[in-house]
């Protein structure tokens, strides 16, 4: 089954974020109040691992799972979309304490209320799609 490896990667991701408590509203609150190193440590370690890993992949010209060269997509240029969009996301992140990954993961922990956040997030994505061409990017 072609999709099994993606499913299993997701399982790993879900377990790690739950056990790291990165899905916890409390952890996001204390992060934004600089009252614990926990979340900064997680993001920092993930980044160090990611930077070293991607550099190795580029230097050694590692081939992907299917034997093709690995292309790492560059982000589009822009400024306003990142500042404004980022700030709007930050407001939501600190309000309900979840980013898109944890929204899904918390569904698995049986938190019914997170379904409302998911519906809101889908609506928000839809509204962006409608307004996209009128917004500065």
């Amino acid at each position, binding site marked *: 089954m072609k999709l099994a490896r993606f499913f299993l990667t997701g399982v790993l991701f879900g377990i790690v974020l739950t056990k790291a408590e990165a899905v916890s509203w409390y*952890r996001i609150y*204390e992060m934004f109040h600089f009252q614990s190193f926990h979340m900064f*440590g997680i993001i920092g*370690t993930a980044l160090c691992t990611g930077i070293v890993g991607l550099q190795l992949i580029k230097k050694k010209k590692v081939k992907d799972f*299917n034997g093709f060269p690995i292309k790492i997509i560059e982000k589009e240029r822009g400024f306003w*979309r990142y500042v404004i969009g980022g700030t709007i996301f930050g407001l939501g992140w600190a309000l309900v304490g979840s980013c898109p990954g944890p929204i899904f993961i918390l569904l698995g922990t049986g938190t019914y209320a997170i379904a409302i956040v998911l519906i809101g997030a889908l609506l928000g994505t839809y509204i962006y799609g409608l307004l996209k061409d009128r917004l500065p990017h």
Partner: protein
Amino acid sequence: MEYIFGTWHWTISGFLIGVTMLILTYFGKTFGMSSNLRTLCSMAGAGKFTDFFKLDWREQKWSLSVVLGAIVGGFIAYHFLSNGTGVSLNTDTITQLQAIGIEAPNGKLLPDAIFSIETLQTPKGFSILLIGGLLIGFGTRYAGGCTSGHAISGLSNLQLPSLVAVIGFFIGGLLMAHLILPLIFKTT
């Protein structure tokens, strides 16, 4: 066993999150969670209203599989890999939270003051969850990514746009946590 059933240390957690991103890179994909929201909108037929959602969601089946896995991962971690000790906060944080009417975690991941079924049924509780979701959905798509896409994938690839986005995440987060949350949860 404490290492498995208690809170995972940030070194282990962070390392494994980085590895998750690298695994998806090795599979020839890009790590990012918020794009699934767009895919789900497309599946629901949003392409009929605006071109932004005219995409073939079948090409995103791999990503939806990651999401499905993440949900199952959350279930496994919560039911089989936890000993109920849960989040431990420092006492300053707990005092501060109690002042705005949010209870201490006591083994829970989420405060009842925001996520309980009772809270959900009040107009205020419902609005907080819905508005939080709207901000997350709108903001991540506008910024082209969330914590996974920008803070982990983007910054790992030393992308300047991702740094700008992450600074934005913190501007919004700090505004909310320090100025707006106390207003919303002011105990009457």
